[in-house]
């Protein structure tokens, strides 16, 4: 089992090394190589999943034996190792599966790009880092994986950074998540200062036995939450994710929908025993606010990828809401189903963008279902899943479980969640209608549109199937994988996914259907002119949504500009103040010497000068002796001194 876990990580890492060294020179620029390595990784995680399903657990002795003494300080040893439980197995499966499909998809989507080989190399590195993050048995290694996925995200968002926009977006993503990472560092320091260990086991034992007091736990968990908010693009650190859509679409599907952004949810889920009631309330509030806010912004976006990005932010908000309401199982369940249907829709949008020659504006699409039946159909499945179409789709079950949990803990937040669910169904149908239904709005784009090749449609079909079946308890992945883990990490009071109340379920069904129907009526059945007329009273609101509530401007004025100004002021202070003081001392010393030089010249020398004038005439003759040559003078001096000495000694 340990070997399998190592294969999962090392296969893509080897792929990264080989691909970055030889990729350019291999046939087809090495895409087959990377698909093979990620395929191997996927196979290994399937085997691992099967073993965990079969009830096998890692023998504690083996785990302990496989730990590696990484560093030592005094008598503290930092050990690193792997942790495999139900949650890990599920995450590994999801990550490797989506990564594999995205690799396959990219082999067609990225065809002809001058840096084709590099793209695959970075996909491999990303997969490696993400798997390190998932398999880590301690917070420090998790943090290492966490930062490395950030690096890969930076590299891949900025994959086309010959242009300015991707470069800016990549930088924004890295720095924003790094602000969140301060929380992680703070949490690491807090926990380490008291337990002298990063291992999850030790941390949780300390938290449950009370050797980590609850105040420390609260602060540490809030730190972790802050880090998760950065990575998972939660309010108010959500601003980077929509910009990150500048990256190639497969990257958006893999990193910014299915895996990396879900790492925040994973982190909170993994470190759940550290969270106290106080910090869980913050988690829930952050999730609820984000879910609604992102949903509102998504209403007014016209770029197909931007809508999906805000939808991701909103869905991640749902997961945080679930976690905050002690619906641990529901949140992680939603993580997996969301990974499938959101990856599906991103890849679907990639297929559309590919077909429309890199047109992303939905206002120039329309009627594409006819031209792209597979993409259209699978996309529709995705829309139904995210809208929570009752009883069939996976999204319904997971969202319902979260809402049930919220209903149980904080009914007010459940209503917020329901509102967000209506919004989700509504804007997703808007997206679908604008892209695939109705009449083509731009004949030129429509003419060029065509169904994508097999490497692109195949992943869509696989994900489409998973978006439906993932909701059913197929091979027992709820009962055997998530629930035991949930029971392990959440002590008493956890709300299980299956305890939903009828009321919540009815409300959830109504919310989803209402959103879908409203979207259908408004965007498929009503004429655009009438929609425009209907929208007119809400023009101010729509502007606010379209401008994303002004967060970008707010940060520019409140954070970026002050930071730059501070930098300029400090730089000036350094040159003029600190260094100026040093130069000042030098200058004072020099003017002091000049002053005494002046006194010397005027006063002392004045007296002398009178005499000097008289001597001057005679001196004129003697001045010939002044050769200006240094050595002559010295020689003269030596001769005189020697002569005097000789004379005196007699």
């Amino acid at each position, binding site marked *: 089992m340990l070997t399998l876990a190592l294969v999962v990580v090392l296969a893509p890492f080897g792929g990264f090394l080989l691909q970055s060294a030889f990729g350019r020179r291999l046939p087809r620029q090495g895409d087959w190589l990377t698909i093979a390595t990620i395929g191997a990784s996927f196979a290994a995680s399937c085997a691992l999943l099967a073993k965990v399903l079969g009830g096998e657990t890692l023998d504690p002795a083996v785990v302990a034996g496989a730990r590696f003494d990484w560093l030592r300080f005094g008598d503290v040893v930092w050990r690193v190792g792997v942790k495999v439980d139900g949650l890990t197995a599920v995450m590994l499966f999801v990550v490797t599966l989506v990564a594999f499909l995205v690799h396959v998809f990219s082999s067609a989507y990225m065809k002809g790009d001058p840096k084709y080989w590099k793209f695959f190399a970075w996909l491999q590195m990303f997969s490696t880092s993400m798997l390190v993050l998932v398999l880590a048995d301690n917070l420090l290694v998790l943090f290492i994986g966490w930062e490395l996925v950030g690096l890969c995200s930076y590299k891949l968002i900025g994959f086309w950074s010959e242009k300015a926009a991707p470069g800016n977006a990549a930088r924004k993503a890295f720095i924003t998540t790094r602000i969140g990472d301060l929380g992680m560092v703070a949490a690491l320091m807090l926990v380490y200062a008291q337990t002298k260990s990063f291992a999850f086991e030790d941390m949780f034992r300390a938290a449950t036995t009370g050797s980590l007091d609850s105040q420390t736990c609260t602060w540490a968990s809030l730190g972790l939450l802050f880090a998760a908010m950065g990575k998972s693009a939660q309010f108010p650190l959500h601003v980077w994710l929509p910009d990150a859509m500048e990256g190639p679409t497969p990257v958006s599907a893999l990193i910014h929908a299915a895996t990396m952004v879900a790492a925040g949810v994973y982190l909170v889920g993994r470190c759940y025993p550290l969270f106290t009631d106080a910090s869980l309330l913050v988690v829930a509030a952050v999730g609820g606010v984000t879910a609604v806010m992102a949903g509102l912004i998504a209403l007014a976006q016209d770029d197909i990828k931007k809508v999906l990005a805000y939808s991701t932010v909103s869905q991640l908000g749902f997961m945080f809401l679930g976690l905050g309401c002690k619906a641990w199982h529901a949140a992680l369940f939603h993580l997996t189903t969301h990974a499938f249907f959101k990856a599906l829709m991103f890849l679907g949008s990639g297929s559309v963008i590919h077909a429309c020659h890199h047109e992303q504006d939905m206002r120039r699409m329309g009627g594409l279902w006819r031209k792209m039946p597979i993409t259209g159909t699978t996309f529709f499945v995705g829309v139904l899943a995210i809208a929570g179409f009752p009883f069939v789709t996976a999204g319904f079950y997971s969202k319902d479980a979260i809402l049930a949990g919220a209903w149980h803990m904080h009914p007010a937040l459940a209503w917020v969640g329901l509102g967000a669910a209506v919004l989700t169904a509504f804007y997703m149908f808007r997206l679908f209608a604008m892209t695939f239904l109705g009449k083509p709005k731009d004949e030129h784009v429509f003419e060029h549109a065509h169904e994508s090749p097999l490497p692109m449609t195949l992943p869509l079909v696989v994900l489409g199937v998973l978006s439906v079946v993932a909701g059913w308890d197929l091979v027992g992945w709820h009962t055997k994988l998530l629930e035991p883990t949930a029971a392990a990490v959440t002590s008493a009071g956890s709300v299980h996914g299956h305890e939903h109340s009828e009321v919540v379920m009815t409300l959830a069904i109504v919310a989803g259907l209402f959103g879908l129907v409203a979207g259908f009526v408004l965007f498929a059945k009503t004429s655009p002119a009438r929609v425009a007329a209907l929208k007119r009273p809400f023009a101010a609101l729509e502007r606010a949504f379209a401008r994303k509530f002004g967060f970008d401007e707010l940060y520019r004025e409140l954070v970026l500009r002050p930071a730059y100004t501070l930098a300029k002021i400090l730089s000036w202070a350094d040159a003029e103040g600190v260094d100026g003081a040093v130069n000042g001392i030098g200058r004072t010393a020099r003017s002091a010497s000049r002053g005494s030089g002046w006194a010397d010249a005027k006063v002392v020398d004045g007296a002398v000068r009178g005499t000097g004038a008289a001597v001057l005439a005679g001196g004129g003759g003697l001045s*010939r002796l002044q050769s*200006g*040559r*240094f050595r002559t003078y*010295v*020689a003269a001096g030596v001769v005189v001194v020697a002569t005097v000495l000789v004379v005196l000694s007699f």
Partner: protein
Amino acid sequence: MTGFLEHIGLMHFLTVGAVLFCAGIVTVLARRNAVGVLIGLELVLNAANLNLVAFDRFGPAPLRGSVFAIFVLAVAAAEAAIALAIVLNVFDSRDEIDVDEVSALKG
């Protein structure tokens, strides 16, 4: 290995000092390179130091000579700093440090 040191007397020190002094003077006179001249100068100063320290060691009033020697060291350091700065300046403005060529003070 320290035994023979006991037999060294004042005269030995003074002889070494004299030799150093002469070497220094010759260097100052013979070198045309300004840095060389400075090195010679340091030799001269250190010859003087050696005498001071020697007299201190063998003379009647301990420490006095050493204090002088420390003063000489400090002054020598300051002198070296200034002289080197001058040399740098000369080198920068004239691209050479041959003291014979630097004769702007010629009467």
